[in-house]
């Protein structure tokens, strides 16, 4: 991918509409492989991971052009190891980073070379942490990832889990249709919704119309089918990745890598 950037499009942008602003350039310290972006509405900040430089970077919400980050978590004490995804819990002032068999947690305002405030890791955790999100309403940490031969699953933990904490419950199995994670997922805590993309089942393909976006619940337990799906055979998505919610307008925003596009769906059922 030739040009790293964070492009901000108007909510109603469509087709070839240009972004209203872009964050880009040397001073931004951005690289490609930004596999996670979080907008923190409480503090009007946005946060991204920087895989190559083992960093989590926070920008002002209105950052534009070559505006640099206002905080960077980076350095030997951090344990950061190619962070791909993360989340910001602006309610409880924490940044959580999944790193395979561990989740490391920082204070939201940490800056520089700081040690994690807690580490969630151990054989009983069944991590597998590819992506995560915090549900502050139901006080849950929701983690998606594979664990040994169990395949990809959603696992719910107490929000403040650390050490060798077991999952409270988990969702996975053939009926669940949870097969290959598309990208970072979204939560809608007031209703306990988990909105997550699945990429094609076949490994190595550039796209497939069995891709979809599904909705599960943080209260689900076991091999539970998605409550709703968008996509699947003979629909629009072929390699969906990330999800964002616009609660006010009852829409779900989905990126699709192979379409190289951002799609907005009306989805009032989940709100």
């Amino acid at each position: 991918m030739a040009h790293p950037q964070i492009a901000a499009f108007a909510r109603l942008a469509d087709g070839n509409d240009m972004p209203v602003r872009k964050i880009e350039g040397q001073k931004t310290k951005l690289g490609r492989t930004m596999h996670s972006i979080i907008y923190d509405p409480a503090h009007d900040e946005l946060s991204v991971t920087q895989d190559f430089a083992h960093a989590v970077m926070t920008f002002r919400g209105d950052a534009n052009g070559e505006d640099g980050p206002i905080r960077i978590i980076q350095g030997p004490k951090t344990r950061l190891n190619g962070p791909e995804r993360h989340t910001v819990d602006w309610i409880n002032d924490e940044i959580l980073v999944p790193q395979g068999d561990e989740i490391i947690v920082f204070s939201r305002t940490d800056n520089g070379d700081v040690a994690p405030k807690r580490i969630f890791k151990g054989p009983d955790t069944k991590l597998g942490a590819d992506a995560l999100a915090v549900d502050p309403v139901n006080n849950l940490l929701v983690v998606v990832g594979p664990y040994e031969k169990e395949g990809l699953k959603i696992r719910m933990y107490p929000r403040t889990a650390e050490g060798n904490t077991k999952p409270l419950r988990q969702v996975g199995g053939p009926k669940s249709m949870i097969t290959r994670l598309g990208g970072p997922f979204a939560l809608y805590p007031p209703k306990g919704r988990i909105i997550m993309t699945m990429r094609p089942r076949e490994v190595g393909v550039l796209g497939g119309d069995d891709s979809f976006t599904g909705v599960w619940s943080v209260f689900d337990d076991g091999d539970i089918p998605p409550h709703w799906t968008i996509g699947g055979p003979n629909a629009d998505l072929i390699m969906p990745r990330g999800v964002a919610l616009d609660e006010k307008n009852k829409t779900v925003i989905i990126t699709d890598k192979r379409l190289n596009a951002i799609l907005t769906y009306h989805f009032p059922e989940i709100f």
Partner: protein
Amino acid sequence: MITRKTAKTFAHRNRMGMAVVLALLGVGSGILFSGGGEGNWNNLRLSSARLISVEPLPQSFPEMDGAMCEWVPASASGSLFASLQQATPDERAAEREAIRQRKPLRIIKDRYASFSAVAVDPVRDEVVMADESLFQLLSYDRLTNTPPTASMSEPKRMIGGLDTKIDYICGLYIDPGSGDIYAINNDTVDTMVIFDRDAKGNRPPTRELYTPHGTYGIAVDEAAQEIFLTVQHDSAVVVFAKSAEKDDPPLRYLQGENSGLADPHGIALDTERGLIYVANFGSVHYHDATLDNPSRPMYSRGEGKPNWPLTRNSAVPGSGRFYPPSITVYDKNAKGDMAPVRVIQGPKANLDWPTGLAFDPVANELFVTNDMRDEVAVFDGDAQGDVAPKRVLRGAKTMIKNPTGVWVDRVNSELWVASFGNYTATVFPLNAAGDVAPKRVIRSGPLGRQALMIGNPHPVAYDTKREQILVPN
């Protein structure tokens, strides 16, 4: 938006099962709903907009001044809920199927080809462009010149489609002997694809080579029959035999703290002096071969292969760094953690996301595209340290916008620049400087229009304050 107060109140309600009133932004009305004692928030019915706070239900409503929206009767949502509950399984299945097939309201997508890389075939008078927006290779007659009144020029041939394994192509090379096209997939595919010069449409590559994850630039030493590739993710240069295919291992690689490689992009060779030039953005982490973290997948097909650069599963936690951008210069046979013989770096060099590189062996000049400065900077081939470019090609007349690809055509004494930012490839004399108009232009989109430059959109966020969709590449 969930606020701290909201979350705490929700949590309290979960515990106590008490009734609450949600204050909803944007409609100015409250929605009353009752909660069960089980703490199951699936039973909540929100009928509007953005949740900003939760207040305990007062014993009695105080008098309220000013305008007040009409209350929605609790029975209304109750009736709706009841009717949904009464739906038959077939009706619910039909509703789910309708949702499954729902069409998007809007799709942000660039419908024009955006040129990320360029390569010239002077033998056959063709030029090939890589298109990262629509995943294609586009071949044009070398002398094509898009008139200002035309929206674009039609290519002679197009290669694209799922069977081609063309995804985010950042680097191109054309074999001067055969005319074969070598195309580097950055990220996502871990495969270099090679097409014969007559290939077109959606067809498998003539040959494939499995590469480390995140290859970006390509340079070829025809005399030695070696291919040099940069590797962004793990900051390396890897060298394969030019004839390598599929699982053939590299011949050697360059990687490590001494190498100065840091998010390498473009690469160029000076085969006469035996030098490699590499453009670095500056982000890097380091590796330790004794580490093997099985929970960090390799993301490539190098397991068990000799001379494969170290990957993320042997990354040293916390070893990430940001360095200023640079051009690092190595002996052509450098390998391991060898240091560069020279480095161009510093304020005078004025590098800003240096992306594409090309070398002119006759003039001993290095051409660098500075993506963010909309320019091509030309350095003396012997430049070292904090040195300014000897000339810069930049300005409105040049039509250069976010240039990511550059090619020196020695046969025709021409410089080609692929501008990812405006659907344009421009042709200049090799000694062009300043704000000069190109000799020719090939456009894939309307004149003056800027490209969206969306590339591998993965995560997405919604800025509720500005009502904006945030999309990183």
